[in-house]
């Protein structure tokens, strides 16, 4: 039972970060109907940014997100303006291939610049943990979870309470109608991609004290982001939040009971089943 609770809890903690990744992808998909295959690579850029801020300028990773968030936002907006914007009307396959290409460029450019060596960002608290009722909690995971909650709340406030946020959600719901309503859809797309990149970058920053940092780390997270968003229903922000936590728990608990080698198989099986039988996501109502 303790093992179960332990894995459950670490699942929830890491699930918070997954939720950020998933929300980023789902906002991009919602607003532009583009599946961003470079999402994990954007996260990887965030990790490297955090790493260098820490090693060169000695800024704590959890503090450095105040720098990472705006920089990653700009990076995302740039990607949208220069690349994605040109294929918005193209075949979905071509959009996917474009983002795959962008991802390859990012990961391999980073590899070229910083080699493919694994980097470790070790802070004083990287491996520290404390016990509550016999369950050990990793401090960096707990801090990152707290930050995740703050960011998620801020994001919800932005999306549901501000005009821009509502315009983004309106665009996500029906791009054509939003345009007719006088919403500047192009601007919303840039903001959406910026937000998506900022969220992925933040997730990267938050996990950098606990993960190896290397150029190819992104692909794992890209795949996870797909699973999370499909599970929650493509384009649904609430869905992605829940999907992230769910996948965090499933991985953590699945890893304990099925062995870590097979847990990915289980995750992808679930993914396929959802795609096939409930493509609108676990929460979604099916519509054509």
């Amino acid at each position, binding site marked *: 039972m303790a093992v179960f609770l332990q894995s459950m809890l670490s699942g929830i903690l890491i699930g918070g970060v997954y939720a950020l990744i998933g929300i980023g992808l789902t906002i991009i998909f919602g607003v532009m109907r583009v*599946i961003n295959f470079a999402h994990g690579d954007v996260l990887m850029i965030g990790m490297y940014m955090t790493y260098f801020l820490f090693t060169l300028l000695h800024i704590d990773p959890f503090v450095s997100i105040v720098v990472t968030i705006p920089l990653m936002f700009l990076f995302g907006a740039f990607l949208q303006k220069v*690349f994605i914007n*040109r*294929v918005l009307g*193209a075949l*979905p*396959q*071509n959009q*996917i*291939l*474009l983002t*795959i*290409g*962008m*991802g*390859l*460029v*990012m*990961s*391999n*450019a980073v*590899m*070229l610049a910083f*080699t*493919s060596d694994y980097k470790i960002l070790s802070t004083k608290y990287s491996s520290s943990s404390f016990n509550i009722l016999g369950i050990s909690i990793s401090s960096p995971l707990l801090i990152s979870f707290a930050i995740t909650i703050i960011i998620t709340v801020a994001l919800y406030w932005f999306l549901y309470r501000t005009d821009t946020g509502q315009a983004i959600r309106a665009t996500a719901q029906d791009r054509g109608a939003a345009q007719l309503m006088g919403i500047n859809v192009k601007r919303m797309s840039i903001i959406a991609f910026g937000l998506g990149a900022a969220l992925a970058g933040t997730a990267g920053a938050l996990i950098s004290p606990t993960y190896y940092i290397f150029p190819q780390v992104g*692909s794992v997270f890209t*795949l996870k982001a*797909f699973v999370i968003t*499909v599970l929650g229903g493509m384009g649904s922000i609430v869905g992605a939040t829940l999907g992230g936590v769910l996948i965090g728990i499933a991985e953590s608990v699945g890893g304990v009971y099925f062995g870590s*080698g*097979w847990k*990915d*198989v289980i995750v*992808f*099986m679930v*993914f*396929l089943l959802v*795609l*096939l039988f409930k*493509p609108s996501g676990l929460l979604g109502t099916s519509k054509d």
Partner: protein
Amino acid sequence: MRPFMHNMRGTSTLPVLLAVVAVAALFLLPNFVESTYALHIMILIFISIIMGSGWNILGGYTGQYSVGHAAYFGVGGYTTIILMQYRHIAPWYGVWAGILVAVAIALIIGTICFRLRGPYFVLASIAVAEIFRVTALNLKKLTNGAEGILITDIPPFKIGDVVITDFMSKVPFYYIGLVTLIIAIFATWMLQNSKLGYYFQAIREDQDAAHSLGINLTIYKNVALACSVVFTSLAGSLYGLYVGFIDPSTVLALDLSVQIVMTCIIGGIGTIFGPVIGAVVLVPFSEALRSNMIAQAIIDSGLVSENSGFGFFLKEQLSHAHVLIYGILLVVVILYMPDGILGFVRKLTSKRRKEAI
């Protein structure tokens, strides 16, 4: 849409003649080329064309963008090699077993996944390939997990008591690759000029319209997948036998799936010679980078001194950058020539023709 078909149909004998000359030249090539490296590149190009042609049937003609074809490449390769290494079944039987297994698996997956369309199908195809990769990593008894299988030796190929080849040099692989690729191209040409080809393209253009015109989508998409997988699996077996080693991170990786798609996209999808052009452009380029030839050439040309920091950097790092070039090519092609090199050239020539008028 189909200039090659019209040409081949006999309005002009020139292209047929050219093709015959090219094939004859390729058959004679090993007699004149001493360099094993040149043969190596040629064999890699052949394998790339075979797998590209395979994907092209499903992705290019039928419009079902699988980004998980590494699954079938890997299943073909693993089946052949496992049978050879552990069951002592000669590869010229094992290759067929590989095709059978890959097609059988493909039909099960196809029946399930072809209900999905557009981006959802792409995601499902990736998920399937990942399941295969992770499974191969975990089924250590069968696949030797992440360490992969090293082929100790391939039994000599005999007819009766006469040894045809003992697979000691690259030459037998060259000819096997060449013959297979000619079969692949011929099969694509046959398909294009058949009812199947028409149905595949109709599905690509508009699934609902195709459905209403009497085309059973599930059946014909699965037929396209099966045709496609035959060549993908063959390419996988050939690759494994040629390289003498197989492991999940090379033959079942997402990178390979992307590379298969790219070969076609860069050449021009849905055309017979698209994969040929894609492979001829991509393979030598990435091999040249991989083997540091380009870095050396830059230094030799005097642009960058070998002893300078940048020269050192190039020599050290450029060989790792072949995937970076893939990425850049992919971005450029999608943005500036979404119909591939063939489509781009055709657009240029038709523009010139219009200007001439």
